[in-house]
C-alpha cells in the first residue's frame, strides 16, 4: 500500500462507512448530469414492462393507493459521500412486481427516467425488500432536485442506481449498460466492494 506523506486522517473510519466514503453529515450534495426537470404529478406515470406477464402503468393516485413502504438507513454516492439516518417513503418494488409478474427468463432491469436517464440493475438487487419507488424523504415530499416527484431507491448500491425522476422499469433477460454505465461506471455498483468503475 502506498502511503501519502504526512496524511494521518482526521478520525477513525466509521464502521458504517464503506471503503473510501465519508459522512456528509447534514449536507445532501446534488449530482446529476442534466438540468433539474419540473415534473407535474397530474400526468406522472410509472410503468413496469418488458419480460412481465402483465405490463402495468400506475398514475400518481394509483401508486399511492398501494401498500406504503419505508426505508430507514444510509445512502452512498460514488462521489464518496454517504448519509446516515435517511427516511424514505413510497412503495416497495416487490409490490409493483407482484402486479406485473416477471416472466421466468427475467434477470435484469433497466430503470428509466422521465428525463431519458437509464441505469441497469440485476433483478435480484431490486427484489426481496431491497428497492423502492419513493416520493417522500425525512417527512416531506421529495424535492425536484433530489429526483422528485419520485425516484428509485436502491440504497445498498451506489446512489446513481437510484434513478431520479424515475418513470419505469423494463425487465430483461440480459444486462445492458445504462447512462453512467456506458460512461465507465460499474454495472453493479456495490459500495462495500468499491465497484465504482468498470473493471473494479
Amino acid at each position, binding site marked *: *500500500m*502506498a*502511503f*501519502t*506523506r*504526512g*496524511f*494521518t*486522517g*482526521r478520525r*477513525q*473510519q466509521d464502521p458504517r462507512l464503506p*471503503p*473510501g466514503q*465519508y459522512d*456528509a453529515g447534514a*449536507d445532501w*450534495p*446534488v*449530482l*446529476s*448530469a*442534466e*438540468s*433539474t*426537470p419540473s415534473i407535474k404529478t397530474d400526468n406522472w406515470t410509472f410503468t413496469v414492462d418488458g419480460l412481465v406477464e402483465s405490463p402495468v402503468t400506475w398514475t400518481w393516485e394509483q401508486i399511492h393507493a398501494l401498500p406504503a413502504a419505508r426505508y430507514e438507513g444510509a445512502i452512498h454516492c460514488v*462521489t*464518496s*459521500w454517504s448519509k446516515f439516518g435517511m427516511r424514505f417513503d413510497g412503495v416497495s418494488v416487490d409490490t409493483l412486481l407482484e402486479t406485473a409478474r416477471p416472466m421466468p427468463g427475467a434477470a435484469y432491469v433497466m430503470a428509466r427516467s422521465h428525463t431519458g436517464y437509464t441505469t441497469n440493475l440485476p433483478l435480484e438487487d431490486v427484489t426481496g425488500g431491497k428497492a423502492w419507488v419513493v416520493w417522500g424523504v425525512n417527512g416531506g415530499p421529495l424535492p425536484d*432536485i433530489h429526483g422528485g416527484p419520485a425516484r428509485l431507491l436502491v440504497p445498498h448500491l451506489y446512489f446513481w442506481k437510484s434513478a431520479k425522476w424515475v418513470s419505469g422499469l423494463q425487465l430483461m433477460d440480459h444486462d445492458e449498460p445504462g*447512462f*453512467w454505465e456506458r*460512461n*465507465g461506471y460499474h454495472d453493479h455498483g456495490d459500495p462495500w466492494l468499491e465497484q465504482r*468503475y*468498470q*473493471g473494479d
Partner: protein
Amino acid sequence: MPGPWQPATVLAVRTETASAKTFTLRLPDPRPHLPGQHYIVRLTAPDGYRAQRSYSVASPPGGDTIDLTVEHLPDGEVSRFLHEAVMPGDTLEVRGPIGYFAWDSKTPVLGVAGGSGVVPLMAMLRAARRDGHPGLIQLVVSVRTPADLYYSRELPGPDAAVVYTRQIPAGFSRPAGRLTLADLAPAIRGHQVAYLCGSSAFCDSAASLLRDLEVPAARIRVERFGPSG
C-alpha cells in the same frame, strides 16, 4: 473510462486565489482526458485509512501532466491536506479521467461557470485557444469579487466574460449583481451545447435563464460542485 490508480508526482503548486491552488501532476501512465473531465485523488494513512475526492482537470489534454485546481473547503478533509501539506516532489495517488461532463473539442460550447465551477470549463477554453479555435467556446464566469477569480491572467477575454456578484473591479461598467439574461445573451451562438458548472443553486438558476433564451434542455449539461471535501 478511467485507468487504474497511479502514483502521480507533484511538479508544481500554484496559488490561484486565497482559497484555491492548482496542482500540476505528472502521470506515469498518461491517459488523454476530454476537457471537462475529472480525476479522483486518494490519500492513504499509515494505518490504511483512506479518503478520496474528485477534482476537475483545468489543463487542456496533451502531454503527461494534468493541472487540478482544488478549492480549500472549510471542513474539507482532502482539500485541507492538499492545501496545507502537499508540496512539489510529493506523490499523490490519482485515478481518471472520469466523467460525462466532457467536451469533444468540436461542438460549439456555451460555458457558464459559478466560482470554482470555472475549473472544468477552463480546460475547454484553454484547449480551444491552444488549438486555434477561439470562439468555439464562449464562456461566462460569475464570481463574487475580483479576488475570487481563478486564472485571472487568462480571464476575461474576447471569448470569456466575467461578471461579479458582490464587488466589481475598477473601471468595470456592469454593476455587481447576479447573472442575468443580458449577461448570457451575447454568448449565445447557434448549435451550442451549454455546460453549466457551479453550486447546485447556481446551476439551477443558470439553467432557468438558458430556458428563457430557448436553449433546449437536451443541450444543457450540468456539473454541480457541492461540499465534498
